[in-house]
């Protein structure tokens, strides 16, 4: 009897724990996201009232014709955007994450978390280095890598030639799963566009092109307030970038259509966030008159256009570029700016980064904390943008190869930690947050794969 009782007690305890676990985060997420969402919408609405611009309006015919003519060169337009402000920037979002607290959490629960000295205070489970080594086994020292073993000093017969040959075979057989496995070791430049399309299951069917054309018509006919935010973002970020300025026009063509694409709403089914809603004038609160605003449910923030810019390097046909971006967004990028407990969600990535640093570079971590330069404050912007605009394009594409290959964004946190490890010597000498930022300001010379390999596989832990 006793045995049964204690077994039962154990089972009940486990069930309670499970229930606690599932509701815990859901509740937390909803609360946090709810208040954040309210803030964003409030900001958007107030901009709307201040500037007396409607959230949406139908364009007069003359304006429609003009826009259609200019479709391929919207970058030449110089509308007055001085009164528009980005709705939020990554650092605002970081403040929200820092303030996430679990109301049910008891300090006794997790020993290791009690000693966590980083900014994130939510005890999510993250991998440690042994687990990461297992997860990223193909990045190990004994396997060939593009980004390392294709450098000029290495004879191509050792790895590169064979790797290219396998890539061509994978493409000819149109094997999506094999492509995903293959790309863990990097994609040859010439095959990358096709490999990504294969992994993301994008094939330009006539109906896809038609869908894009419909979105384009939508853009021509209606003007949305978010359009101005998109313009502003592109002008502030991508157009000012030394390399992406060339693709300015493509960015408008993709992002303006993206904001009207209601199929993107589908991703909210597995996103704990919910799309912001707006009400037809005069019908506030009446659900029948609620519409999602913007139509795709995604309000762009400062730097959003950088998700698209690197893709312009690979795809030149607007509807294909659009499809690839949309798929990348609903699979990966949305996790970087919404609150969830998913291992690839931004909260987990931040926690993974801080934990790696605190565990494997404790001296550096403590030093930076002492001088008021919490490492996450510097690395957050890299992770939110998936390093776009910070790394050289060829390095960025090698990184995104691995995101696709492992179907996970955790590599962003590992890379961020690896960058800190690489510049540790200089960082140990700084005495202020500004100086730390300066040491880490320029990542354009970094080689991503050697950094990752050294951090994961060649550092004595």
């Amino acid at each position: 009897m006793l045995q049964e009782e204690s077994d039962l007690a154990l089972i009940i305890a486990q069930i309670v724990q499970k229930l606690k676990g599932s509701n815990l985060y859901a509740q937390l997420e909803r609360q946090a996201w709810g208040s954040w969402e309210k803030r964003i919408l409030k900001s958007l609405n107030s901009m709307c009232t201040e500037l007396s611009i409607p959230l949406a309006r139908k364009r007069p015919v003359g304006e429609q014709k003009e826009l259609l003519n200019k479709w391929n060169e919207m970058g030449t337009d110089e509308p007055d955007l001085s009164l528009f402000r980005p709705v939020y920037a990554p650092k605002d979002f970081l403040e929200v994450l820092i303030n996430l607290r679990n109301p049910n959490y008891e300090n006794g629960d997790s020993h290791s978390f009690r000693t966590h000295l980083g900014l994130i205070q939510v005890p999510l489970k993250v991998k440690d280095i042994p687990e990461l080594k297992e997860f990223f086994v193909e990045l190990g020292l004994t396997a060939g890598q593009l980004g390392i073993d294709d450098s000029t000093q290495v004879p191509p017969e050792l790895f590169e030639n064979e790797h290219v040959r396998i890539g061509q075979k994978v493409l000819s057989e149109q094997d999506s799963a094999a492509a995903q496995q293959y790309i863990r070791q990097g994609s040859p430049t010439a095959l990358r566009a096709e490999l990504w399309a294969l992994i993301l299951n994008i094939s330009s069917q006539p109906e896809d092109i038609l869908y894009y054309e419909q979105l384009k018509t939508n853009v021509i006919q209606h003007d949305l307030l978010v359009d101005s935010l998109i313009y502003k973002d592109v002008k502030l970020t991508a157009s000012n970038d030394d390399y992406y300025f060339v693709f300015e026009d493509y960015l408008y063509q993709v992002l303006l259509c993206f904001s009207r694409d209601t199929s993107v709403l589908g991703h909210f089914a597995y996103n704990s966030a919910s799309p912001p809603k707006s009400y037809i004038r005069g019908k506030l609160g009446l659900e029948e008159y609620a519409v999602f605003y913007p139509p795709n449910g995604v309000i762009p923030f400062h730097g959003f256009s950088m998700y698209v810019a690197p893709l312009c390097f690979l795809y030149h046909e607007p509807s294909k570029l659009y499809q690839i971006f949309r798929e990348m967004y609903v699979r990966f990028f949305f996790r970087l700016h919404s609150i969830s407990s998913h291992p690839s969600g931004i909260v987990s990535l931040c926690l993974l980064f801080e934990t790696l640093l605190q565990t494997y570079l404790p001296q550096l971590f403590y030093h930076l904390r002492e001088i008021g330069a919490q490492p996450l404050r510097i690395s957050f912007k890299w992770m939110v943008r998936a390093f776009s605009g910070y790394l050289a394009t060829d390095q960025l594409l090698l990184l995104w190869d691995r995101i696709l290959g492992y179907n996970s964004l955790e590599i962003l946190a590992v890379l961020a930690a690896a960058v800190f490890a690489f510049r540790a010597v200089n960082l140990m000498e700084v005495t202020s947050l500004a100086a730390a930022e300066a040491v880490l300001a320029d990542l354009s010379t970094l080689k991503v794969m050697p950094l990752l390999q050294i951090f994961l596989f060649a550092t004595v832990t």
Partner: protein
Amino acid sequence: MSRQKSKLQGAWTAKGKRERAESINPVQDHSYEYPHGCPSPQARMGGSKGDTRSSDDQKDDIPVENYVAQHYIENPYLIGGRKFDLRVYVLVMSYMPLRAWLYRDGFARFSNTRFTLNSIDDQYVHLTNVAVQKTSPDYHPKGCKWMLQRFRQYLASKHGPKAVETLFSDMDNIFIRSLQSVQKAIISDKHCFELYGYDILIDQDLKPWLLEVNASPSLTASSQEDYELKTCLLEDTLHIVDMEARLTGREKRVGGFDLMWNDGPVSREDGAHDLSGLGNFVTNTHLGCVNDRKKQLRQLFRSLQGQKKTPN
């Protein structure tokens, strides 16, 4: 003087001998008058090393102006809807025999406005020199240039490595042939060297065209990256000029420069030239490739020092 109807068709650009970039004018109307001499439609070589035929009209006391007319390329390769040209640096150490070095770095210069033939009067669209673009109201001070490495990668991801190899080896041909065509006309002096800025335009069939060769390429920098490129370029030029007499004269690479022509083609492989013409020959040019010049210079000078210590 009666107006003579020109036989030129289509769009042409005309450049005078002494004129600099600002005064290039694309012309469409082919009834323009060329009062002195006859421009050569075949010539694709502009600038001061071009045609120096003098006119017979000296008794008129009108100064002779020679023009070189070039066929306007109507189908340039566009990136992001923009026209661009390439700036490449070639160092010539002697003409007789011809010794020329090619610098690995260079850049692509973009026009700020979108290309269209409708606006042939808009010089900002067609003329990509930074000197001209700087005056465009659209000009972003960050500079509208791409380093050649970036350009090469972009093309490779779009057209594959083979097409890019072909394009770059066609460009090698342009450099060599242009130098060979003036070899006899230029005074060869062992104590002279000249650094040229080649302007190349690519068309949509990935064919390179020579726009002009500048004997005084601009060395002012429009950005930090530009500054680094030009200072390294100058440093390596002076290494090759070798006033300190450190080099043996048998080097095939010095910093970012690769020896492209040494009274004959230079092969990438070590050892004798492959004169059998069996096609295994790969030229020793690395335009748009990785430029690890610091490392190379360190190794070079270290080995040169080593050689000095053990004289034979």
